[in-house]
């Protein structure tokens, strides 16, 4: 399954997710706007902007997580070697929507959802999308 197919399946399955992109090491691999029948497009000229914005959000969220963890006794700081090592997902309430960024295997999947989504379900769908898009790596990387 290609990234575009995985993204298309995600939008077909999820009732909350409106729009989604997959970012892999600074490049947008798959993107699909909501309400477009899940048609996944090739990367466009706005890719650089979205990659930078997502990276900025992720780095700040990772730093916040480290600071909060340190305030809780520093238990989460052990083994952390870089800024984003301990963060798995970020969920930000934007009043009329929710932005979710989830990281797996060095890639980020970014989703815009309806307000107050079924969060557990949305996170599961996003993880499944990445696993479908990169089956070999997820099979090798998943703990049993």
């Amino acid at each position, binding site marked *: 399954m290609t990234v575009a197919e995985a993204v298309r399946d995600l939008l077909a399955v999820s009732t909350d997710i409106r*729009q989604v*992109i997959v970012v892999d090491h600074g490049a*947008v691999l798959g*993107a699909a*706007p909501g309400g477009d029948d899940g048609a996944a*497009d090739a990367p*466009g000229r*706005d*890719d650089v*902007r*979205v990659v*930078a*914005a*997502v990276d*900025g*959000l992720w780095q*700040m*969220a990772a730093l*916040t*997580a480290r*600071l*909060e*963890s340190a305030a809780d006794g520093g238990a*989460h700081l052990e083994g952390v070697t870089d800024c984003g*090592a*301990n*963060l*798995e*997902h*970020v*969920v*930000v*309430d*934007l009043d009329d*929507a929710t*932005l979710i*960024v989830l990281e797996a295997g060095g890639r980020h999947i*970014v989703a*815009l959802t309806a307000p*107050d989504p079924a*969060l557990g379900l949305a*996170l599961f769908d996003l993880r499944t999308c990445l696993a479908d898009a990169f089956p070999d790596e997820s099979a090798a990387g998943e703990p049993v």
Partner: protein
Amino acid sequence: MRLRSVVLAGLAVAATAAAVVARRRRRPSPPAPAVLLGLTDGSTVRLAAGEPSVADLRARASEARAALEAVR
């Protein structure tokens, strides 16, 4: 007389239970976090609106949203 006492005691218990249930129903549920950070160890950090860094995180998220919506 004894039966009357038992009935009254039962009514009192029922009234107390109803009051407790009603109070619990009136109690507002905790507000949803403005930002939720999920960590790789399964724990989460919940940040309510007004907490330090939430405004910055929301501003960056809005920026990411605008960029996301521009991608076609």
